[in-house]
């Protein structure tokens, strides 16, 4: 492996490295508890005990009963399970579904698939800062609304939705409420038992746990259909051999988060301020998303008339995300930023800095220097729009 040494990684919203304590726990489980928890022998029972510990750790972070947690392969699967598994199950209640334009693809594409199957989806628009006004949500409710899915923290902008208020409205109207919490779990404090949320998706690799494992919280009494079939694991809601080391890693990441969330938030807030102070004098700089009250680990900025792919290359060895099409398999610039009212041009020049636990003030200094220089360089390189 080479080349990773001199990178400056500011893409923690894409994925995080393993926390050392998580890595150690996983190695221990791989060495000593690698058995199949479904096996009825001493080895299987050792692994079962490991799963119990992990469920307890995650349950404690979220303040839920461990029995409400379903292990999945990540947030994408949790989102699919939650939305597909509810919509079909509740078809008799109505065919109207509510979500936002700025959801992650793991939610958007599931609702698109449901539209093709005859469901009626309302795609709510956010304000220019990414935030969804509760009146707009309430106004979209119909007699036949059966399910709403609104994300907790937006992965591109850091905008935080008021899931307590939205959930309360859902409860009043008998609407099942799913929250994609991939960017919030382990990163912000919240208490699921005291939130009016029926289903909550999360994934370990966004908070220093392993990739390939996540969980869906299913509030007691919430009916759900499985997405996959086979074997009796996890109350028939999610079959397959439990990946005991991954689940142990998710549990450990939750335990680490439980004691470090407040410190993390303070750290990220300071770093974000430093970053913003360092670049805010660039002419034409725009913040994509909330200026102040978003998740502090994300700062998404754009400048007019810069080509995104070239900016990304000019920023190397900085690892950041862009709203430009080259970022993804799709060919359009970020639909999330477009929904905030940004032009294609603006969206494709956007850079998302996402900061993390290991980020230092020095990293931010370097990022500021590279960003300022990169923008200047490309501006100098560009001809006037009309020669």
């Amino acid at each position, binding site marked *: 492996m080479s080349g990773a040494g001199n990178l400056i990684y500011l893409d923690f919203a894409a994925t995080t490295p393993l926390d050392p304590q998580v890595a150690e726990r996983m190695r221990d489980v791989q060495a000593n508890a690698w058995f199949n928890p479904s096996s009825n022998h001493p080895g299987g029972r050792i692994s079962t005990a490991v799963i119990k510990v992990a469920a307890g750790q995650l349950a404690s972070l979220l303040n839920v009963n461990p029995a409400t947690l379903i292990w999945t392969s990540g947030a994408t699967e949790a989102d699919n399970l939650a939305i597909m598994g509810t919509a079909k199950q509740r078809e008799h209640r109505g065919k109207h579904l509510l979500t936002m334009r700025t959801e992650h693809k793991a939610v958007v594409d599931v609702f698109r698939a449901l539209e093709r199957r005859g469901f009626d989806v309302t795609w709510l628009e956010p304000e220019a800062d990414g935030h969804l006004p509760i009146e707009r949500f309430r106004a979209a409710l119909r007699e036949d609304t059966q399910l709403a899915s609104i994300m907790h923290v937006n992965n591109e902008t850091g905008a935080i939705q008021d899931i307590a208020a939205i959930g309360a409205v859902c409860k009043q109207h008998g609407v099942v409420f799913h929250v994609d919490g991939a960017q919030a779990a382990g990163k912000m404090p919240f208490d699921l038992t005291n939130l009016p949320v029926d289903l909550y998706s999360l994934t370990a690799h966004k908070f220093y746990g392993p990739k390939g494992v996540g969980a869906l919280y299913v509030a007691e009494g919430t009916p759900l259909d499985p997405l996959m079939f086979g074997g009796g694991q996890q109350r028939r809601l999610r079959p397959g051999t439990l990946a005991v080391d991954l689940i142990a890693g998710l549990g450990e990441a939750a335990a680490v988060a439980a004691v470090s969330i407040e410190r993390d938030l303070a750290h990220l807030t300071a770093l974000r301020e430093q970053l913003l102070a360092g670049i805010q004098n660039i002419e034409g700089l725009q913040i994509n998303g909330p200026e102040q009250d978003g998740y502090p680990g994300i700062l998404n900025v754009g400048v007019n*008339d810069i*080509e995104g*792919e*070239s900016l990304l*290359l*000019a920023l190397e060895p900085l690892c950041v995300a862009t709203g430009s099409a*080259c970022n993804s398999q799709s060919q359009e610039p970020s639909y999330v930023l477009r929904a905030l009212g940004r032009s294609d041009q603006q969206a494709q020049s956007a850079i998302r800095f996402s900061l993390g636990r290991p980020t230092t003030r020095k990293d931010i200094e370097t990022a500021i220097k590279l960003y300022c220089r990169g923008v200047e360089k490309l501006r*100098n*390189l*560009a*001809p006037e*729009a009309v*020669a």
Partner: protein
Amino acid sequence: MNNNPYNPAVRDCFGSPDHAGTAAGGIVAFFEDQGMRIRLSANVRNSIITELRFLVWGCPHVIAATETFCRQFEGRPVAELELFETDQIMQDLAVPVEKTGRILVLEDTVRSLRAAIQDRLLSKPD
């Protein structure tokens, strides 16, 4: 999935775009298409391109291709501009096929520059 999309030649040209800028008082060609903007400017003496400069709004491959073009043709006779070949540049810079259209914008700009130079040469031969 993305492979490393930039070969060393692209990185060199993008990192050191020595021909970026404007040839003062030179002949100019400009093209805008495919979301890219390319501006070439040249000074010519005795049918030799003595100075070749560019400005580009575009992706790294287009920037690198334009710098490569300038490196190759500065100092050479105007007539040799005909030898400019997009195929060769696409290959040298390992330009992904889906960007072919963008490189053709460069081709159009070069053709337009050649025409502009020839116009000028005809109007006031040296």
